[in-house]
């Protein structure tokens, strides 16, 4: 049977024509995955156009770490992680805590420990997390010292690190009072008294911590606000500065690592 010639298709206006297929497209339509990708790219582009954050991300993530970097170099980030763990568990504890020396503080901690779902677990994580963080801070500092990583050009980062060490110990000291049991109370009295024997600033520091010459009603709320607001804010700001300097200057290479490729060295000299 002879094939009849087809009628020519009527000319369609351009707006109604299907666009030519693009890579990843089937039958002229985007798949759901492609759609999601496009949406994601659009959002990221929108934000990046207004903030230029992608450059910061590249600078932060794709910088090179020197040859020979080993597991000792994870101690700093481990400390940061311990701090984050403290922050998260601390937020949950703060949801229940009442800084009331007349009995509310002790009662709220008793409530968290004995009645709240997973309360003792979270409090345990916060309590032991502080030990872990102090240990990690000292290990990180020991690594920095032994590898000579505090020397030129990283002197300032060492100083910031020492301030962070002191702030960590202040956190440990102020946090110790908050459960307001016998051990916390008396250890803090002795601790504040020890502070008071210091030269020049000692007595003033003690009075500031106690909120007066005596361990009184305001002492607990003072410790609470130092522990919850003042010192964490300082720590976060200084961690930011610490990390900025680490990224800017680069982590040190292990001291025994030598650039062996002398051709590179000559080139760099030239």
């Amino acid at each position, binding site marked *: 049977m002879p094939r009849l010639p087809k009628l020519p298709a009527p000319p369609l206006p351009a707006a109604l024509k299907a666009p030519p297929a693009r890579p990843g497209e089937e039958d002229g339509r985007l798949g759901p995955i492609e759609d999601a990708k496009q949406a994601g790219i659009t959002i990221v582009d929108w934000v990046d156009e207004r903030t230029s954050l992608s450059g910061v991300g590249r600078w932060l993530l794709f910088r090179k770490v020197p040859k020979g970097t080993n597991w000792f170099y994870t101690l700093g*980030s481990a400390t940061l992680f311990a701090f984050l763990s403290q922050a998260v568990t601390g937020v949950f504890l703060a949801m229940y805590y009442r800084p009331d020396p007349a009995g509310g503080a002790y009662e709220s901690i008793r409530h968290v420990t004995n009645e709240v779902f997973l309360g*003792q677990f979270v409090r345990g994580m916060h309590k032991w997390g502080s030990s*872990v963080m102090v240990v*990690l801070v000292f290990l990180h500092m020991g690594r920095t010292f032994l590898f000579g990583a505090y020397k030129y050009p990283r002197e300032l980062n060492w100083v910031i690190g020492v301030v962070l060490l002191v702030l960590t110990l202040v956190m440990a000291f102020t946090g*110790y009072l908050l*459960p307001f049991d016998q051990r916390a*109370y008396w250890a803090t009295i002795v601790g504040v008294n020890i502070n008071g024997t210091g030269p020049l600033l000692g007595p003033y520091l003690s009075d500031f911590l106690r909120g007066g010459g005596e361990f009184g009603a305001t002492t607990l709320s003072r410790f609470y606000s130092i522990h919850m607001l003042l010192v964490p804010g300082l720590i976060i700001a200084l961690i930011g500065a610490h990390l900025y300097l680490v990224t800017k200057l680069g982590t040190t290479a292990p*001291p025994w690592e030598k650039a062996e490729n002398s051709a590179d060295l000559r080139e760099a000299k030239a």
Partner: protein
Amino acid sequence: MNQLEKEQYLREYAILKAQGKPFFPYAVAKDAAMACVVLAVIISLSLVLGAELGPKANPTTTTYVPRPEWYFFFLFEMLRVIKPPSLVPLATIGVPTLGLVLLFLLPFFDRGPERRPERRPIAVATFIVVAGAMAFLTYQGANAGSPFAVEMATPARVTQAGGATLAEYTVGKEVVASRGCLACHKLGDNGNAGPGPDLTHIAARLPRQGIARTLVNPTAPMPSFKNLPPKQFAAVVAFLGQLK
């Protein structure tokens, strides 16, 4: 470091850095693994050791142990090592402050270009001595004796006097034991030698009024005992007043 050494270091470092790997994903992977270890340690400590809550804080009654968290033991134990009372401020604040100042200024007085530990004998020796001292003091602090028992013979003259004197002496001894005085004072063979002075023969050095005054208004870091119930306070003074 002089200018030449600084430039040499920067050049050497630039080459080592160029030969290194990108932070993401290589260092990030290690850091993430370490973070998992840290989290596992914290969780297992919490599950195994828990978070016990002692009796409620009470300024006037019951027993207490003025002990800090374990990582402050090395500071607290320093008080024990340095005994003479005139040197106590040195121990409590002088040594830690000096240590902290030295720590702050470390990069400014140690300016040598050498970074390999085996070629920095002074730095490494200092590190070992300081770390060893801190470990030793922490160990000492962890093994401090129980502050809650006074076992010592009652003096013959107290036994002979009998009656009210003996009764007050016994009560005083119990109060001293239960108040945790022995955490910082030595009493015969009991208690810890420092930070406070030895109380075994305190009455030979201090009259009763002096003892009472010290209890009310003590030398730091000792807490004040003026909130003790008057009867207990009198008994403590009577007990300590017999220790000649």
